[in-house]
């Protein structure tokens, strides 16, 4: 249930961005499998948390990332959906080297709001 904490942190981070929360149409978050995030739970936490707030119209888009394994035999890194996958060189036990990302990738602003947004000011 750390999804509620993650959403709480995400909203605090969004509050730091140079837009009013009601201008935000969607929020894109990516996370590696090591983070143990359940997407359904994350979406539920998002909806529960933004209810009756300035972010109420914002959609959360979750992008799961793959495991990244490193083969010590051929010194290659490769992405895989299966954490137990062997390397193409035949090594059955490549070691874990990535998959712990948790990133706010981007925000989408409503077009009509964008005309007045801080980014459009040219002075």
């Amino acid at each position, binding site marked *: 249930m750390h999804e509620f904490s993650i959403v709480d942190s995400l909203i605090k981070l969004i509050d730091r961005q140079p837009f009013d929360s009601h201008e935000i149409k969607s929020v894109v978050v990516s996370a590696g499998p*090591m983070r143990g995030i359940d997407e359904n739970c994350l979406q539920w936490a998002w909806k529960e948390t933004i209810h009756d707030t300035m972010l109420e119209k914002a959609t959360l888009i979750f992008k799961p990332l793959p495991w990244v394994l490193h083969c010590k035999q051929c010194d290659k890194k490769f992405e895989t959906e299966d954490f137990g996958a062997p390397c193409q060189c035949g090594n059955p036990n490549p070691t*874990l080297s990535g998959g712990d990302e948790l*990133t706010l990738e*981007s925000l989408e602003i409503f077009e009509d709001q964008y005309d007045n947004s801080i980014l459009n000011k040219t002075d």
Partner: protein
Amino acid sequence: MKIAVVENVLKLNDELAQQNRQLLKDAGVFSIDLMGSPGCGKTSLIERTLQHLRRHMKIGILVGDLTTQRDAQRMAEYTDQIVQINTGKGCHLDANQVRQGLDQLDLKNIDCLIIENVGNLICPVGFDLGQDVKVGMFSIAEGDDKAAKHPYIVHESSLLLLNKMDLLPYVNFSIPNFLEDINQLNSNVELIDISVSNRYQMHRWFEWICKQTFGRSEQNNESPVMNWCG
């Protein structure tokens, strides 16, 4: 209109954690974030550690639970440098809760701080508290597949403890399978198999704590505790 941001979602927690880290460093405190599932033996380990090491080093405790003061009450017999943090519905500690706990401790009179996280193999791992090291704790009773099923705690830990070794004859637990999973997830992690209840290999844990706490600066290498640890 899409705007790229690319920031760590837990950035604000991590900033607070960095402040905690500096606070602890300035006070000369070595700190451990102890993580493991409910019932793996975290509180018993700390009790035994306090019993054994309190004459040799000053240990402070932050202990996280959803509710009750029971763990703090158990440990209060051995130290008054203890704060119970109740997280309510929260399944892990965060840097802000730890900061509030640190403010209630006399850090100048602590050599080693053990933060017992909420019993959970998943959620605590991603939240930096400002600790020096993370220690993950498993137990024989949980089964040999728990490392593979919870890769993040293995990957992020500097030390893993495998507790309840005394139960090995009674439980279907394959040590080789467990070690193979650990090696794939984190080939650099140190592992100590122990039994808190019958004290099997507890000296290795005590030595590890002593070396981490006092062995990090050259000037302290001659401390009585290091000599005592051998």
